[in-house]
């Protein structure tokens, strides 16, 4: 079975990263010379720590004040979003209630409206009117109400979409 680590790896890394490898005790150095794992660790730790030193020197990081200010503004913005979220939900629920109420009222009033419409037709055409005349009148009425039907259909389709966008605002 392959050994993946060595018990002295930590000592080796510590010596290299604290720049004490050259002056490390001979026992540790001779161990690293004979141990494949520690030999690799010395090479890589020297390489990566040197690269880190160079990159740290060359890195262009923003000023602390700038990072703090951006964080402060973002925190305030998130707090504002959190405060607005219940209002958005409330608006959505109110809209859904209003639509439901309108549909319920419409459903309850529908039989009365139908009776009223039948009575109006009878009053308009009279009891002795022929069937052909009634059909012509009905088609004309249907044609007149077609735009209204389209508007109602569009409302039924678009209302949930509008509700969705209202709720996903945050």
């Amino acid at each position, binding site marked *: 079975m*392959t050994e*993946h*680590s060595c018990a002295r790896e*930590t000592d080796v*890394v*510590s010596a*290299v*990263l604290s720049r004490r490898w050259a002056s490390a005790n001979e026992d540790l150095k001779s161990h*690293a*010379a*004979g*141990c*494949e*794992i*520690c*030999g*690799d*660790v*010395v*090479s*890589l*730790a*020297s*390489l*990566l*720590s*040197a*690269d*880190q030193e*160079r*990159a*740290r020197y060359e*890195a262009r*990081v*923003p000023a*602390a*004040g700038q*990072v*703090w*200010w*951006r*964080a*402060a*503004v*973002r*925190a*305030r*913005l998130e*707090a*504002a*979003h959190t405060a*607005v979220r219940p209002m958005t939900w409330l608006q959505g629920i109110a809209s859904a209630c209003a639509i439901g109420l309108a549909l319920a009222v419409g459903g309850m009033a529908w039989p009365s409206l139908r009776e009223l419409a039948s009575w109006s037709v009878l009053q308009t055409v009279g009891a002795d009117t022929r069937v052909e005349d009634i059909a012509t009148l009905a088609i004309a009425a249907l044609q007149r109400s077609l735009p209204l039907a389209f508007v109602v259909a569009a409302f039924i389709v678009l209302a949930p979409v509008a509700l969705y*966008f209202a709720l*996903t*605002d*945050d």
Partner: protein
Amino acid sequence: MRELVLTDLERVGAFDDAERTFQMTEEAFRVFYEQTARPIWVYLARSTGDDRLADDLLQETYYRFLRTRTTFESDDHRRHYLFRIATNLVRDQWRRARTDAVDRSDVSDVPVLSEDHAVGDRALGRIDVARALEQLKPRERSLLWLAYAQGFSHEEIAAQLGLRTGSLKALLFRARRRLIAVLGDRYRSGGRRD
């Protein structure tokens, strides 16, 4: 959709609110930032292989750090926590990029840096570690950096990456092998060689 924005006045007010919202004062943050920003940036840059992304992740790392409710026992604990946040952010980046990632699981497929590059680098007196790390998997970059540039213990790295220490040792071993394969024998120094 409506977009919530702050007025200039609110932005100024945000500055006053910050010390109540964040887990340290601005003055303490300045000191901590001066000590940690560069190592964190280099870690992010080497782990992601993208300096501009490292800039964004640096800001995000400190923002999450400032918002945390964790109580720190020491400066080391605070520093380790910062690296943990950075590691999580890097891991999120891997997950996002995973669909585009090339499978580099086979050591034999790892391209060794060309002799031309090596000669140029040696002429400049340095090895382009960043380019070598780019040949490795993102997790291997993080492992190697935390272990051999930051000097974190196996237990600390395992905790940061959510791994068992035993698994971490095996992963670290493979990562070492892969980086050495990328660098080639030219850069090896010390230790027994077969």
